[in-house]
């Protein structure tokens, strides 16, 4: 099956945005990298919008998209609604940033919850009895794990940029979260891919998802705790690798497509 790049980018970018905003929500209470939060909110919103636009590009007739409002049980509908709600919470968070701390915190938590849920539901939409290699809960968990690595790496990157004049200790939590995201990506990707790794041509993307997308961010997170002077470089590397890993995992899913039957032999 051909790789649906529109959907790969949609799920990778919105997942990254959701988890980036989760980093914001955590710091709303940890109060260690507060300077990064407004910028991180803007980046998360941009990721949501760009990801949403990317998803539309695979539709042959996007002009009919409003008809989706008539059918709320579809995975596509749920994803679209979650993108909309997460974006709305992020916008309210940004508007309330210097005005009302309570509203800001509530929106940060709510937006993070919806954003994280989106990263899971984006993979959950592919659970269908017709496709053996997709019909496992390990798939949405891998979507969630790889999004966690990319989003939390991106938060560490924004924090490293915005906090270059503060003490390295302030970045500690951001790099701990980055490392946790790396572990999540490596473990969930490995678990999913182990079950579908029959095809040898999946080896490259599997290595990309597990090693590049999980282990490298984990190593960067650990290194960042010890060598805070290299925080910027480490977070750049972690973010790039985590995004590559998230894309590899999603490509592997499309490449591993094995339908129950394909009597008409149509290549999707």
């Amino acid at each position, binding site marked *: 099956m051909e790789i649906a790049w529109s959907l790969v980018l949609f799920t990778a970018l919105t997942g990254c945005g959701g988890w980036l905003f989760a980093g914001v929500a955590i710091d709303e209470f940890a109060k260690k990298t507060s300077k990064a939060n407004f910028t991180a909110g803007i980046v998360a919103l941009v990721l949501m919008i760009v990801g949403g636009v990317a998803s539309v590009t*695979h*539709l*042959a*007739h*996007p002009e*009919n*998209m409003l*008809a*989706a409002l*008539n*059918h709320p*049980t*579809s*995975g*596509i*509908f749920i994803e679209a609604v979650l993108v909309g709600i997460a974006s709305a919470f992020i916008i309210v968070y940004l508007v309330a940033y210097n005005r009302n701390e309570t509203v800001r915190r509530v929106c940060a938590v709510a937006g993070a919850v919806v954003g994280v849920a989106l990263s899971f539901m984006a993979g959950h939409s*592919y659970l*269908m*009895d*017709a*496709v053996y290699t997709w019909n496992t809960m390990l798939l949405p968990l891998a979507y969630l794990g790889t999004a966690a690595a990319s989003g939390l790496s991106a938060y560490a990157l924004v924090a490293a940029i915005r906090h270059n004049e503060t003490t390295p200790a302030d970045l500690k939590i951001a790099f701990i979260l980055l490392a946790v995201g790396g572990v999540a990506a490596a473990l969930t990707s490995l678990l999913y891919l182990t079950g579908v790794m029959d095809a040898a041509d999946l080896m490259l993307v599997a290595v990309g998802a597990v090693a590049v997308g999980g282990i490298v961010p984990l190593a960067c997170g650990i290194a960042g705790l010890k060598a805070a002077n290299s925080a910027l470089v480490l977070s750049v590397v972690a973010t790039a690798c985590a995004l590559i890993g998230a894309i590899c995992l999603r490509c592997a899913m499309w490449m591993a497509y094995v*339908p*129950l*039957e*394909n*009597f*008409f*032999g*149509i290549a*999707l």
Partner: protein
Amino acid sequence: MRNAIVVDLDRCIGCFGCEISCKMENNVALGEYWNKVIIEGPHGTFPDVEEYWLPTMCQQCENSPCTHVCPTGASYRNEDGVVLIDKSVCIGCKYCMMACPYGVRNWNKEQNVVEKCTLCQHLTSQGKEPACVHNCPGEARFYGDLDDPNSDPSRLIAESAPEDVHHLKNVGNNPSTAYILSSRFGTWRNGD
């Protein structure tokens, strides 16, 4: 009401007439299908070989995955229980094609929409038979309401030995279409 087609594979001669009449009746483009005959076999070692022809099309699933996943309701079930596609609201996401357990939905390259067997609604709504049923020279295809014990397909199923009545692999979608194949003609290899 459960309108569907039942195919008596014991009578199918593998002429591909159903496939061709479907294409002509519904103006299905070259390389595209609403109905396709699969050659199942040959299996075995000479002289013990067997083969049968399996005409495939929308199985009119009772629990149809295509209608569940369609984001716009373009894939829907009409008042007669027939799964159809309203091409005017199809967004071309192909989600239904992924969800179909049998890969019997077609991508219309000219209109950029999904389409499939309609059980020839334009004919059956006037009391006529679907083109594939009408044109089958072996009289192997039967159309009607499976909930009506007096319909042609219901009578065929009732007259057949239970072990000769088959369905494609069922993963919870409960396909309505049935295939009749007795062991003297071949061993069923396509599911339940």
